[in-house]
């Protein structure tokens, strides 16, 4: 039942101070709202119970193993949240003078420095609000770099076919054409195809390494050489940084511009879809174009650098400079890892992925790239199960929910048929990985014996499989008062 369906006229939660404000008679009648918006009228207990019960209809890291590939669903330490919520941080106005913000600025400055060191870039801006905005920022900087050199011929951004959808979408938002580069049979970028594609029209390449097929591209130095020789820049999509944190740095691989997803690698919460944070790092030649604001340290004092200090900046990505509360959480996490803990993240994320991959392979599941090491994630393809039993990766995914596991990423990357992209992360125990393997084996047995059962899954969730086609055809995007009057279909 929607909160709206629990509404009774005149009922309310008494959370506000009583107030006896007069009619705002100085506001012209023509600008005044005629009827109150139809928001629910409910008691505080109703609100608390409703949203608590709704929360219980979610899978989450705190409640379930959540091996969603490319998303790094690792434990989000509780202390990061409670420290970011300290009143001194939470109550500070974004436009308060910096004298009243030395604490938060110190944290942000330190975070900039840690991210520089661990990625090998020469400067970092914390401004972008998520990974995709980091991409937009990064590609805009690449554009600014070429334009500043008077090079107007570069119209194409090269993007491997395995790349995340945000990569081509971000390139297009910056005015580039996205040109696809194929992935070779071993999972690495097809270097010959790349060689054939580069030219004076090449603005750069957007690469994820380890890539979204879960392998480290062994030809990265060669790729860097080819693109640089053609005058293009290398963009690093840092969604998979967890796999190599502290082991190898994008800056050392030859990348000119990178973004990081702090909600992945630095364990800030995913929040049911966000917020995240997508800081960008750059090599020295791209540094002038970084978005503002940046934090600068002068002696013991910290201050913002803005447009006035940074005349070549591409500008601002959000009104107030980024998702500060998320950056604080990432800072706490980074300090708790410390210099010795960075590589440990990659070590155990990689150990868990390779263990899970080996166990699934031994259980007879087909790997997309069986000759390769897993990075922090790997792909199982269910094309054989699809052919033999008529079940799909989606059926497996839905049935996994019944076994108490969040499904891996399905149908991404697009080039592997019936794929499950599986990322266990370093914070899972061997026992939880073993449990996942057992579930996969059991589900395959069901597929063999009773494929219809899989197609009907899930059975134990708050809802059975939802009709996406109906959702898109008979759009119902908001409760309306008519529904209430007509009884609606709320159950």
């Amino acid at each position, binding site marked *: 039942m929607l909160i709206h369906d629990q509404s009774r006229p005149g009922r309310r939660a008494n959370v506000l101070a009583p107030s006896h404000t007069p009619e705002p008679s100085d506001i012209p009648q023509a600008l005044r709202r005629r009827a109150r918006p139809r928001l629910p009228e409910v008691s505080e207990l109703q609100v608390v119970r409703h949203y608590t019960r709704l929360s219980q209809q979610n899978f989450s890291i705190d409640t379930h193993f959540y091996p969603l590939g490319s998303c790094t669903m690792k434990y*989000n330490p509780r202390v990061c949240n409670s420290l970011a919520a*300290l009143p001194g941080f939470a109550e500070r106005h974004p436009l308060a003078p910096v004298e009243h913000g030395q604490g938060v600025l110190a944290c942000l400055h330190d975070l900039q420095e840690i991210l520089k060191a661990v990625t090998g870039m020469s400067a970092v801006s914390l401004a972008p609000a998520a990974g995709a905005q980091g991409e937009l920022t990064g590609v805009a900087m690449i554009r600014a770099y070429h334009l500043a050199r008077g090079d107007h011929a570069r119209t194409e951004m090269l993007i491997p076919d395995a790349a995340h959808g945000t990569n081509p979408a971000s390139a297009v938002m910056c005015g580039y054409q996205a040109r696809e580069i194929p992935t070779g049979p071993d999972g690495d970028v097809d270097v010959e195809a790349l060689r054939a594609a580069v030219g004076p029209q090449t603005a750069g390449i957007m690469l994820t390494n380890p890539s979204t097929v879960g392998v480290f591209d062994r030809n990265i130095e060669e790729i860097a050489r080819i693109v640089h020789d053609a005058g293009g820049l290398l963009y690093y999509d840092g969604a998979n940084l967890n796999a190599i944190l502290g082991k190898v740095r994008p800056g050392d691989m030859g990348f000119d511009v990178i973004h990081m997803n702090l909600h992945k690698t630095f364990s800030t919460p995913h929040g049911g879809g966000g917020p995240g944070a997508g800081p960008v790092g750059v090599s020295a030649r791209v540094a002038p174009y970084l978005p503002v604001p940046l934090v600068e340290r002068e002696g013991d004092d910290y201050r913002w650098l803005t447009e006035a200090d940074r005349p070549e900046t591409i500008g601002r990505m959000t009104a107030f400079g980024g998702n500060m509360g998320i950056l604080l959480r990432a800072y706490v996490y980074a300090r708790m890892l410390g210099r010795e803990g960075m590589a440990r993240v990659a070590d155990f994320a990689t150990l868990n992925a390779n263990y899970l991959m080996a166990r699934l392979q031994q259980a007879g599941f087909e790997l997309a790239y069986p000759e390769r090491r897993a990075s922090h994630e790997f792909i199982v393809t269910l094309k054989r199960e699809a052919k033999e039993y008529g079940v799909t990766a989606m059926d497996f995914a839905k049935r996994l929910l019944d076994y108490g596991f969040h499904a891996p990423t399905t149908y991404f990357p697009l080039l592997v048929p019936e794929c499950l992209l599986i990322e266990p992360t370093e914070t899972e125990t061997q026992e939880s990985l073993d449990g996942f393997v057992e579930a996969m084996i059991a589900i395959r047995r069901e597929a063999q014996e009773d494929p219809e059962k899989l197609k009907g899954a899930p059975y134990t969730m*708050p809802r059975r499989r939802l009709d996406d086609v109906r959702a898109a055809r008979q759009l*119902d995007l908001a409760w309306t008062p008519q529904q209430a009057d007509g009884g609606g279909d709320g159950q």
Partner: protein
Amino acid sequence: MPFIPHTDDDVAAMLQAIGAPSIESLFDEIPAALRSGERAEIPPALSEQEITRLMRLRAQTDEQPACFIGAGAYDHYIPAAVWQIATRGEYYSAYTPYQAEASQGTLQVLYEFQSMMTALTALDASNTSLYDGATALAEALLMAVRANRRCKSRRVLIPRALHPLYRSTVRTIVEPQGLELVEVDFDAASGQTPVERCTALAGDQGVAAVVINQPNFFGVLETVDALTDWAHEQGALAVAVVNPLALALLTPPGEWGAAGADIACGEAQPFGMPLSSGGPYAGFLCCKQALVRQLPGRIVGRTLDADGKPGFTLTLQAREQHIRRSKATSNICTNQGLMVTAATIHLALLGAEGLEQVARACHANTLGLVERLCALPGVEPAFTGAIFHEQALRLPRAPREVLGRLAAEADVLGGFALGADYPELDDALLVCATEQRSEEEMRRYASALAEILEAG
């Protein structure tokens, strides 16, 4: 090892299952020359107890004086239940609800959010957030230009009385796609954006969209009906940028002018989000039904499950980057989901009556403060237009200096100095007194200002 559960025995058994001699050997596909060691620049690890001590100290240095700054971010009371529920692990540590059946909690919250935002704006559809108010406006303009097929131009009129940080963010995001942003000046006396000024800037090719800001950056109420009608007469889409709290008192965008604004967007921070130095907040974006396929970002729809029970799922995904790639309506993927969860709980607790009460209290507090401050010699409103909960005041002394002394001597953040963004308002300060500001704080502000001005 923080957050890593493996015992030595676990590691040995797992390596054996893999058939690898060491964890290090799992990295053997990475060219050796690229490998990096531990970085001395990164400080050594701190325990939870140690980082807590450090962060408490730093947070203490940031504790705020009484804040009379608004300018796009507002100090409102947040009921205790909002964040106690929003930080439940089931919301906090879930991700985008791709697996609908295991995410009905998040999905229903988002649907309820959409329902609340469409009710507030009087429009048909809402997405489930963009990064903040400024990026929501950038996306709204890209959407408007895409949707407006009748108009060949990519020209957009944008009021100069719109938040300067919104204007600069929008510029960064939309200019690479060739949108032409033309600023419409405000009337020096009223602070409003007159329709006549728009007419002069219409251009030969016409205008694709007109931005209408209610209230505008100076807190002044615009003549939204006239601006909306003018936009529609030009064949432009009317794009509203609104403070959603103000909609408790003001005509919703869907009812502006004869036909209503086509798109409404803005910053949802006033709904339960702490100021937090600027984020995370959440941008909202609503539109008329006809434009829904151009709407960027996640959208939740109500549908039926295999048993015919109503349930919720992400819908219209063919607009999005993971399906449409380079032809998507936007690149957005991760949004501000948890902030939307907080906003939904906040709105459910307040209801329409509570929201109106907060809006009225802010309005009354700001009027009260303005009356007090304008009783001082040389202090006067910069504009004559009616306001919501902010007012630009002209001072007889340089605002920057006044602000510094107010903070140092009275523990008051006295407002936002307008001169850096508006040279003609070099002597002006933008003040805001939300429902959080007490009588005592306002009295303290007024008497400190009196002393500062008297001292000359």
